């Protein structure tokens, strides 16, 4: 099977999303390591040719170059032999997945920003309130999903939306947000961890 190329930094949570999706979907990645921290290589002129906004990860599949994480996840799910399971066939469930992917893109960026500030320099407090509010909205949603007997964000099965959103919660302790106040997200995170092909990254302990 052909390998797709991922420009990757192991400690970057967006890159982890792509690695996790690839592993779950059964896609082999050719990883190219980018010295994002401390080297800031992703903002340098060579990488800007690939990713004009200086964003990671970058996925290359032949002539196709993707620089936004949500489309990267969707493309990996469509490409991998096991990826179809993460793309709901029911129209309503699929629409809900897209809605939560848009929520991820618009509203959960604060969690990545808070984490980046906490780990690599900056003030996490600038981003932490918005990030916490986003996770509380997701907690409310998953509390309701649980009562409907639906274990995942879009429905009864895991979708690309779960892969996008999981790291925001799983890595929140990096920016000092404990999991105590998020009982529905704790249970959801356990379900995600049990998916076949699940992989961790530094900051997400390897157990359960």
């Amino acid at each position, binding site marked *: 099977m052909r390998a797709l190329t991922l420009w990757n930094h192991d400690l970057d949570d967006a890159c982890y999303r792509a690695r996790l999706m690839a592993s779950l979907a059964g896609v082999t990645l050719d990883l190219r390591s980018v010295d994002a921290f401390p080297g800031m290589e992703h903002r340098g002129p060579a990488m800007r040719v690939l990713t004009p906004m200086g964003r990671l990860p970058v996925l290359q599949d032949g002539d196709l170059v993707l620089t936004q994480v949500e489309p990267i996840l969707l493309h990996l799910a469509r490409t991998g032999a096991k990826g179809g399971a993460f793309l709901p066939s029911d129209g309503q469930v699929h629409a809900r997945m897209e809605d939560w992917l848009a929520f991820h893109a618009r509203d959960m960026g604060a969690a990545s920003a808070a984490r980046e500030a906490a780990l690599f320099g900056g003030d996490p407090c600038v981003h932490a309130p918005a990030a916490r509010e986003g996770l509380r909205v997701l907690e*409310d949603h998953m509390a309701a999903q649980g*009562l409907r007997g639906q274990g995942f964000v879009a429905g009864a099965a895991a979708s690309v939306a779960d892969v996008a959103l999981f790291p925001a919660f799983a890595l929140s302790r990096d920016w000092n947000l404990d999991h*105590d106040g998020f009982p529905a997200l704790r249970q959801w995170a356990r379900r995600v961890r049990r998916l076949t092909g699940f992989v961790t990254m530094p900051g997400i302990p390897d157990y*359960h």
Partner: protein
Amino acid sequence: MSAPAVPPGWTAVALARDIDAGTSAGVVLGGAEIVVWRDTGGRVHAWEDRCPHRGMKLSFGFVRGDRIACLYHGWEYDGTATCRYIPAHPDLAVPASIRVERYRAAEASGLIWVAAEGTGGAPPEVAGLVALRSLFVDAAAGDALARLAAEGFPGLGPVSGVEQGLFLRFTQGGTAFAVACHAVGPGACALHVLVAGAADAALIPATAAFRRAVEGAA
């Protein structure tokens, strides 16, 4: 500096269904940090959330059978909170003096309750109620309960039949609620919401709206 104490008398700290067998969770009760965990047989334990080795939170650890293991160096504690295994010294007979402080833990009314050691009796069992959710709110427990008693959850209609006790009970829009509350700290609490009949997902937005309302007023 000594850690805040777990109060005598029973306090609900979580929904029973929110802590699965073989998992752990951190709970803060009036500033006291507690690990609540279930062994793989389903029994609930509540201890101080602090590993005697280097102070790591045990709630970050993982459950193996009837023991919980610390995330840092893997020290394992059995159901009596006594250390039984130290991975760095696998042949060592671990001194029985290495123990975690234990509290009482019990299940009733679909909730997990904790109390200081020495607390007698059992927490209250109320019939006919099912757990809806735990709602964490940035407001003092007294303020949250007072507002709930006065106005209920936004959008569900007028409140009637208010009774205050270990549960705040009231009826709203034909639904009977019972709410147990634990103070997390001076300005934060958790409301453990039970409802009569069936737990309907359609009630969740009203609980979230309550959180926004009470935090907006704080």
